[in-house]
């Protein structure tokens, strides 16, 4: 388990100004779980992981790895603690002049393991990342995805219980990203790794993370299980991230005419989120038969979040006296309903 307590970090810029990058960050990463950290560029995510393994010293706060404080230990104890935390970077950081084998063997050589043990371990690692046919290749002879797999094998060489990943898939194409993420997930499962996954891609979080923390301007603004965050995002930033992942969001022309105040005649716009068994229920048609109102689906999206189905849709309901009942029914059926506003009938035809 990793625990971050009250982490603060301020950079002094060459201009003399100071830049607060981490502002009182508290985070617990439970053993054997994948904790995703997401946020916009410059939010302080990289700085946060770097504080975990001591590449960066926070100004104040504490970092605990299985109860051991990492900020107060000696240099040699820190090195020892680091061998319990593998780290993977966006720009892989392999040694160009070393072969795949030598790169993966490197952390073991640093430890002073004996040759036979290293050979065995490296071959088994390369087997796990399906690179046994590339043992003697140099990094320049590998694709980006293959290089990242070498980096994963290297990070796992010393059998660390913790894996820190900073934007590990950001430089890869969508398909390779999928491969790397499923590799990460299967390794995490089989080795019971505790993972801190830094990313700006909500899709990566949705697919592999157990919990997610959202960062903005150096602060953790939201933390919870992935399903919770996807279904009931609390802050605007999180909502935007979730929406962009589901490719949802009202088009600008519709947004322009959507108002918070009820209108005489027109439509009420709702965002509905549902998960699991709810997805199988024909709720829309039921609304029509029960209340005699038509629900018009404007946008919809169904994905898997952390292994279970989750759907999002944006519906327009024709305004009538039944509106409260319809919304109530939807909520009772297990949907998370968020009111977006009202659109005048006249505006509707315009947009």
């Amino acid at each position, binding site marked *: 388990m990793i625990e971050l307590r009250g982490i603060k970090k301020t950079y002094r810029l060459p201009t003399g100004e100071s830049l607060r990058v981490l502002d009182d960050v508290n985070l617990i990463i439970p053993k054997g779980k994948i904790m995703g950290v997401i946020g916009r560029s410059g939010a302080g995510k990289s700085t946060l992981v770097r504080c975990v*393994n001591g*590449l960066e010293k926070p100004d104040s706060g504490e970092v605990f790895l299985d109860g051991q404080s990492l900020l107060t230990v000696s240099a040699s104890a820190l*090195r*020892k603690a*680091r*061998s319990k*935390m593998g*780290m993977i*970077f966006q*720009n892989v*950081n392999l*040694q*160009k*002049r*070393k072969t795949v084998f030598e790169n993966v063997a*490197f*952390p073991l*050589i*640093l*430890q002073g393991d004996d040759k036979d043990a290293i050979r065995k371990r490296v071959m088994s690692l390369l087997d796990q990342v399906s690179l046994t046919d590339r043992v003697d290749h*140099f*990094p*320049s002879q590998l694709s980006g995805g293959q290089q990242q797999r070498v980096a994963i094998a*290297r990070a796992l060489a*010393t059998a660390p219980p913790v894996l820190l990943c900073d934007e590990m898939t950001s430089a890869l194409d969508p398909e390779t990203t999928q491969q790397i993420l499923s590799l990460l997930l299967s390794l995490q499962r089989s080795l019971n790794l505790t993972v801190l996954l830094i990313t700006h891609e909500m899709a990566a979080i949705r697919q592999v993370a157990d919990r997610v923390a959202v960062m903005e301007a150096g602060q953790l603004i939201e933390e919870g299980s992935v399903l919770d965050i996807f279904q009931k995002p609390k802050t605007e930033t999180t909502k935007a991230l979730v929406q962009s992942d589901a490719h949802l969001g009202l088009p600008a022309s519709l947004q322009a005419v959507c108002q918070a105040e009820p209108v005489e005649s027109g439509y009420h716009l709702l965002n509905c989120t549902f998960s699991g068994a709810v997805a199988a229920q024909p709720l829309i048609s039921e609304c029509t038969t029960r209340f005699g109102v038509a629900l018009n689906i404007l946008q919809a999206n169904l994905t898997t979040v952390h292994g279970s189905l989750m759907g999002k849709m944006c519906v327009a309901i024709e305004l009538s006296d039944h509106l409260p009942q319809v919304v109530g029914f939807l909520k009772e059926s297990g949907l998370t309903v968020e009111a977006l506003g009202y659109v005048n009938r006249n505006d509707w035809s315009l947009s």
Partner: protein
Amino acid sequence: MLTGMTGVFLSASWDTILMIVCSTVVAVLLGLPMGVFLWGGALGGCIEKPSLHRLVSALVNIMRSVPFIILMVALIPITRFLVGSSIGTAAAIVPLAIGAIPFFARLAHASLEAVPHSLVEACESMGATPWQMISRVIVSEAMPALARGVTLTAVTLVGYSAMAGTVGGGGLGDVAIRYGYDQFNMPVMLVTIVILVILVQLMQWLGDWWANSLDHS
């Protein structure tokens, strides 16, 4: 005008090669550790010693700014002490080597700086000690650039060794001055130049081949 000169050219070439090889070896052996220290000794470096770093850096700059011909004369007492004489091939090696140390140190420094900082951090996060970082990461990754630095040093020393020859250092420079200049023997002068050009070409070719064989990027 070239009759009977073959032996002179051969032994002069040999002397020049000897001077260059010996002084390059000394320059690399002493300049590389200096370059490593220039790289890692600064504030925030992996073997940080800020005050010693400033001192070494200043020393290198001072030595680099003294013209070679002056350095050679200034070093005569040291040369006498080390080889027992201030003229001849062995005596020329002393100022050549001492002049080349800071030169190579700066080249090595630049080569090491070119290794991406993110790789240094990656290895740091794997628990590398400063010594492991230097020997197994930085110097290893910088090898192609260091090889090019060695070649550049050796080629530069060809010119300086000719300069050393003019003041009694032996080698091809000595031949060019004694026969070519003092006796107005133009053919000897030309042959000397041709030999030097061939020598430099060979060294460059060898150095490029060496560096490329080390490079896997």
